[in-house]
């Protein structure tokens, strides 16, 4: 318990340091808000174009689909703010040997790598995504109860854990492949699945992305909870699969770390 408290304190210190560093480049903050916002607008424009031709996709109406896409954006932006910036720097640290400095510190390397950087810009976009979710719910005349909202937040955390597990597994490939910058492309490519309505997927695709890589659950389960209420079986499945994915990713990272050879002389 005390070691968990120690890690939490360490995280707060890292956050404070990262925030100071980010605030040194204030113009950068606004530019990145616009960049990330443009990608979100792109997704909403896609939904809009498709729904000009159909009324429903796999049982999801246009506002329901907006709740799904915006929930996915909300999770992705929180992940991009807190965990992604540190993880994506791992390939470069392995290549130039800067990982040595992290390994020398008296704290778990996985924790230090994951929390070493912060981006504030995505938090503004997470807020915009939350507003879009609220507007779409208003469009559907749905007012979620407090318990539903709390459950939604817990499911958002589970979604973050799934994002974390996948990206940690991908960047850990860097211990085997020297230049692994493509893993970021892989992360964005694979996570396109999370924007799909779960009912649209069938056969092996649905099995693969529900049980092995629970991407079809990441945004679908929180969005469905808001739209259709609490489904215990789906919720339990989501929590189990995301925990399994996180444990696997952590083991894979440890395995890779054993292969690390310092690049210094």
């Amino acid at each position, binding site marked *: 318990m005390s070691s968990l408290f120690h890690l939490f304190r360490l995280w707060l210190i890292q956050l404070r340091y990262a925030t100071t560093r980010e605030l040194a480049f204030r113009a950068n903050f606004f530019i990145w808000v616009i960049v990330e916002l443009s*990608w979100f607008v792109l997704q909403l424009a896609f939904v809009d174009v498709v729904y000009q031709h159909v009324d429903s996709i796999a049982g999801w109406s246009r506002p329901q689909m907006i709740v799904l896409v915006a929930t996915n954006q909300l999770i992705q932006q929180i992940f991009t703010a807190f965990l992604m910036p540190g993880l994506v720097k791992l390939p470069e640290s392995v290549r130039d040997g800067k990982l040595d400095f992290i390994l020398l510190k008296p704290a778990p390397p996985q924790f230090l790598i994951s929390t070493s950087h912060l981006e504030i810009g995505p938090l503004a976009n997470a807020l915009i995504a939350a507003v879009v979710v609220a507007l779409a719910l208003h469009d559907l005349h749905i007012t979620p109860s407090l318990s539903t909202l709390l459950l939604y937040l817990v499911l958002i955390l589970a979604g973050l854990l799934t994002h974390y597990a996948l990206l940690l597994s991908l960047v850990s490939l860097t211990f085997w492949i020297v230049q692994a910058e493509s893993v970021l492309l892989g992360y964005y*490519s694979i996570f396109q699945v999370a924007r799909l309505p779960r009912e649209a997927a*069938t056969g092996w695709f649905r099995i693969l992305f529900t049980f092995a890589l629970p991407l079809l659950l990441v945004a679908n389960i929180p969005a469905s909870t808001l739209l259709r209420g609490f489904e215990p079986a789906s919720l339990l499945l989501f929590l189990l699969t995301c925990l399994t994915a996180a444990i696997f990713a952590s083991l894979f990272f440890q395995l890779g770390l054993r292969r690390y050879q310092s690049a210094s002389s």
Partner: protein
Amino acid sequence: MIASFSALPTVFSIGLQRQLAYRWNYLLRALFSAMPLLVSWVFWGAVFQGKSTVGSYTLASLLTYYAVLLIVESVSSPADDDFQISREIREGTLNSILLRPLPYGLYRAALFLSGRCAYLVAAAIPVLLCFFLLSRVVPLELGSIDLARGIPAILGSALLQFSLTLCLSLTSFWLLDISALIFLVYSLEFLAGGHVFPLDLLPPVLFRFAQCLPFAYEYWFPTAALCGTLSPSAWLTGMAMQFGWALFFILVAQGMWKAGLRKYTAAGG
């Protein structure tokens, strides 16, 4: 000038060797690039439930569009040329290139070409394998492929994308970090370039507007040309627009290069 041209095969060869040293990176990139096609198959499969056409597309013709787009992208899109150029300017490694008797634009063009060739060598087998496997489960209309119109449009797309990349990268003479600008243009390319959906699914007014922009000629136009869905006159107009935009960006890049060099300070020893 002639001597400069004779150096290009060497630059190409060095670039190719450098790129192939990271073949696993390319292999991963190729494998991941097939993912959007799978997602499109699942998504559009659900959209087409109970419908035979969306706009002018059947499910098979729409999926063929996305599959051909994969090929167009792998042949014509720069990998990280933009960030390489930016680093050269920012970190001052441009100094050693400036000393060489070779125009910088041609030097980068040779490296761009070597990057595309390396990518094709590393990606050819996985992409073809993905294509073969997908064609077993996904209905594709490969019979209508028009190579005679498609290949010039792909080459034009490569030229256009290279010249646009050059323009964006050369802003490094004035900006410290250009990644935000690059990602902003990426998003425009994805939406207005026909990467997310074929542009002819847009309402007519927006479609006509998109055809005035350069992005349409990066992805949508070469893909539609290769799919064989363009009329002869639409193809000719498209080629003229594509090469017109490419020429425009080359001229802008030339101007930026001259202005940038006046501002550039070579430091270090």
